[in-house]
């Protein structure tokens, strides 16, 4: 009897002891959970985020790979070698670019720092996935392994066409495939020859004239006033605010007076009575200034935010952020100037191409990319880069509507040179004033074209000081379209 009561007591105390451990268990779970999360993050970083850091130009580690690996080749999608390392008999290595300056900004350079694919593809180029035993063999003989090759999405023919078409002008041409985001061509001028950049380096960096700056990739880093190409966004905002935009009508007299300025149509044209479609197709500044007066500035700002203004573009190339500064308290001058693409707004050609691509792809932006896959030097694929969605910039209906507007530009507006071809083209021209000298302007064209067989490509062209978009930029785009859609 006594024994059982002792047992009972001890049970009670044991029971207390048990319960006492409950908090210990809670704490243990808490910490184990924290460690699990931490290990999960570590894995997440290694799998998804590490490339951003590995390929950062600040990361000098990859260069030590060069001690054991011969840098791989960079190739175009159609198999042309764009960059290769030539190993001399004495073991010296020279980076050779067969097409010189044609791919200067797209492929980049690999001396005195790095740029382009040479920079963000550095890690892949300096890794070798040669056959395992071969690597062992080389290791024993103390020889270098052959690095992996990068096969790009760049189309040699389109690049050559764009390069020739831009001629001696300063400016940029970029060609995207809207359905995938592939960068098919990327030309920026003035340019340089990556073969001789090392010898020329002192001259290049001592040239402080900002207009030259040949190392700048104007496609992603050049910030330009968008001019009339911006009317694409103004139109979208107007459509969103006014479901009855069909009823829009405006009497163009060639100019419209604002508080402090007067806005006039390009070449002082007088467009007469016009609806929204015609205003867009003829690129009527006075009509768009009128539209700008009535827009909700806050909503306009939000639209531009969602269109990646003020944000980094989702691409590997170093890029500048486009800027849209219209505020709720901005005055009417600024509002009207912004509506026609002048004012403080600045965009990069790549940004215009991205917006155009989204319109051509039912509103969905595919992330632009230039590395299609990497392969070992024998041609065995190491890593395939797939196209990926960034997200919808606008709705499918809006994209279709803007597409109609842009078709009208070609069929009866400023892009008529693209009319009547074996492909269906759509686009928007622009002539952007960039200084107080009103006689000079940058010529813009951004648009896309398609055929049943070959699908759709988007082209954005800017010709610095080229004058009117319709005369300076559209012909360059036309040559690119012609080249792409000509072959069987």
């Amino acid at each position, binding site marked *: 009897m006594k024994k059982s009561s002792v047992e009972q007591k001890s049970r009670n105390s044991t029971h207390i002891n048990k319960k006492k451990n409950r*908090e*210990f*268990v809670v704490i243990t779970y808490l910490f184990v959970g924290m*460690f699990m999360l931490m290990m999960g993050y*570590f894995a997440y970083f*290694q799998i998804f985020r590490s490339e951003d850091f590995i390929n950062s130009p600040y990361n000098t580690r990859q260069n030590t790979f060069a001690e054991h690996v011969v840098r791989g080749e960079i190739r175009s999608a159609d198999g042309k070698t764009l960059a290769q390392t030539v190993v001399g008999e004495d073991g010296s290595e020279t980076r050779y670019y067969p097409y010189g300056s044609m791919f200067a900004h797209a492929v980049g350079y690999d001396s005195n720092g790095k740029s382009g694919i040479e920079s963000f593809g550095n890690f892949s180029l300096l890794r070798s996935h040669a056959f395992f035993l071969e690597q062992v063999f080389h290791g024993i003989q103390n020889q270098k392994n052959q690095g992996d090759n990068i096969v790009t999405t760049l189309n040699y023919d389109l690049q050559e066409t764009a390069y020739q078409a831009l001629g001696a002008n300063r400016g940029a041409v970029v060609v995207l495939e809207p359905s995938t985001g592939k960068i098919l061509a990327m030309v920026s001028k003035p340019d340089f020859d990556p073969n001789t950049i090392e010898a020329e380096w002192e001259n290049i960096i001592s040239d402080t004239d900002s207009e030259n700056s040949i190392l700048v990739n104007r496609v992603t880093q050049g910030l330009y006033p968008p001019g009339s190409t911006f009317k694409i966004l103004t139109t979208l905002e107007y459509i969103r605010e006014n479901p009855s935009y069909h009823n829009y009508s405006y009497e163009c007299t060639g100019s419209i007076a604002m508080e402090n300025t007067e806005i006039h149509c390009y070449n002082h044209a007088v467009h007469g009575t016009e609806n929204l479609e015609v205003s867009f197709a003829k690129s009527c500044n006075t009509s768009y200034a009128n539209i700008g007066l009535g827009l909700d500035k806050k909503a306009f700002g939000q639209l531009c935010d969602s269109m990646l203004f003020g944000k980094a573009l989702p691409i590997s190339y170093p890029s500048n952020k486009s800027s849209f500064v219209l505020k709720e308290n901005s005055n009417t001058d600024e509002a009207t100037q912004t509506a026609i693409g002048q004012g403080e707004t600045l965009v990069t050609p790549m940004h215009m191409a991205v917006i155009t691509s989204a319109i051509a792809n039912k509103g969905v932006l595919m992330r632009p990319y230039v590395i299609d896959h990497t392969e070992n030097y024998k041609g065995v694929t190491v890593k395939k880069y797939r196209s990926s969605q960034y997200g919808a910039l606008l709705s499918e209906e809006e994209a279709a509507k803007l597409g109609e507007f842009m078709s009208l530009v070609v069929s009866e507006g400023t892009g008529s040179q693209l009319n009547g071809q074996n492909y269906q083209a759509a686009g928007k021209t622009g002539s952007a004033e960039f200084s107080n000298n009103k006689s000079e302007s940058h010529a813009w064209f951004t648009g896309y074209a398609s055929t049943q067989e070959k699908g759709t490509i988007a082209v954005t062209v800017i010709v610095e000081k080229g004058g009117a978009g319709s005369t300076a930029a559209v012909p360059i785009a036309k040559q690119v379209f012609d080249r792409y859609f000509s072959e069987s």
Partner: protein
Amino acid sequence: MVHLITELSKYTMIILFALYTWQCFSALGRHVDLEEQAWKFKKQMAYMYLFHLNAYAVLYLSTKNQDLLKFYLEQVVFFLAVQALYGIFYKRVSKLVVNNMCMLMCIGFVMLTRLSYKHAVKQFVIAIVSMALTMLIPYFISRWKFVRSLTWMYALAGITMLGVVAVLGAVSHGAKLSFSVAGITVQPSEFIKIIFVFFAASMFYESTEFVQVVKATLVAAMHVVILVLSRDLGAALIFFIAYMVMLYVATRKLYYFAGGLLCGAAASVAAYFLFDHVRVRVVAWQDPLAVFEREGNQVSNSLFAIGTGGWFGMGLNQGMPYKIPEVKQDFIFSAIAEELGGIFAVCLILVCVSCFLMFLNIAMQMKDFFYKLVALGLGTIYGFQIFLSIGGDIKFIPSTGVTLPLVSYGGSSLLSTLILFAVIQGLYLMRERGEEEVEMAAKPKKKKQKSRQIDEVEEKISQESREIGSWVAKNLGEANEGNTKTFDEAKTEKVKKPGRKKRKEKLSSHEETIHGTKVQDFD
């Protein structure tokens, strides 16, 4: 040829360490008997020595530094000595904790040798001295009963030392952390962490009444505030978390814990706006590349190292870990990830987790509430420091600049961690001994019987070890504490039944089984 060996060694070292890590958990599995467990621990040591040999072979081949051969052999002797001493004098300690302690130090030596031979040698000397000193701790901790009554001495010592350092201490790396005596730089906060745990444990052991909690919290707050003022954010956080955990477990009031954490969060936000050097850490954490030239430099370099190393690493001496500022102390994990690989780094985290689980395990096994709290507090300190250190290195959380215990360079860090491990081992020792005493008390016997009793005790130890294993396995897996309860119940019953009568006066509400019987396990 050297390159080839380095390349192949990457994989062999990962495999060896992965096997080691696997044994940390599998040795504690449900169906592992004592013999098998001992065999697994032996295998663990074999993996460690093979890893050690492999690493130094690579280091020697790539540097051709003859001194490394001697240094390597000295380390082997050191590890053998540690193993032997524990094996002879402290049979009952947790073998896994001994193994992990050696393994972590081994990785530390390898990495420090790679980073700076001079510093590695210095660290090794400190390790020998520290090990010699801390070897005695398990013996004393299991005998000195007065440690629970020094409550206010702990508080006084802690606050005085922290205060002195804050006021007079040398300014090192923007934080007033250390002072030098006779050429030796000491970082007191490393040691006060341990004293602080003893303080909190003895406070809550005395009572968990509201007044007592207020007193303890005030003292704890003083510690934390001094640390924040001397800009030692990492230590401040560790003290804070350790105190919150101990408070929660002692009072069993979740709202203390939740409320405390909320206050902590609010204080962190305030610190962000008040202190420039807190802001710097957060800015660097948000987007290190954007502020690469200044704030983000350290974290960016750490991530370059981890990213470039990938899962398999660059190979020893093939990376550029020296590009990371403070790599020997705060960013040793990044150097390990870079050269030994991401898989190795994850295994390292798991080994640390294994230590943490063993600490919490002894906390649950102990019956004396004071020692339960001590084990819990020390475990929390250790676990949270691992979290801060590695989490900061991989940009999981903002970097707070704390060392990775036993791996990082730094005498104070090493000595204090070894003390911490030794105290835990003392508790393991005490637990085993406490049971033996009870057994002996139950059947007053002749000397002859002793050997049989020891057999019995060992039988019980083996049973317990298995239960510990099942507990660990369970806590890593599903959330089910039922088993632990049944086990504890059974065990405590066995122990208590005879012991109950012999109990002396109750020291406090938490006092359960403390006996002073002499059992020689240190002779």
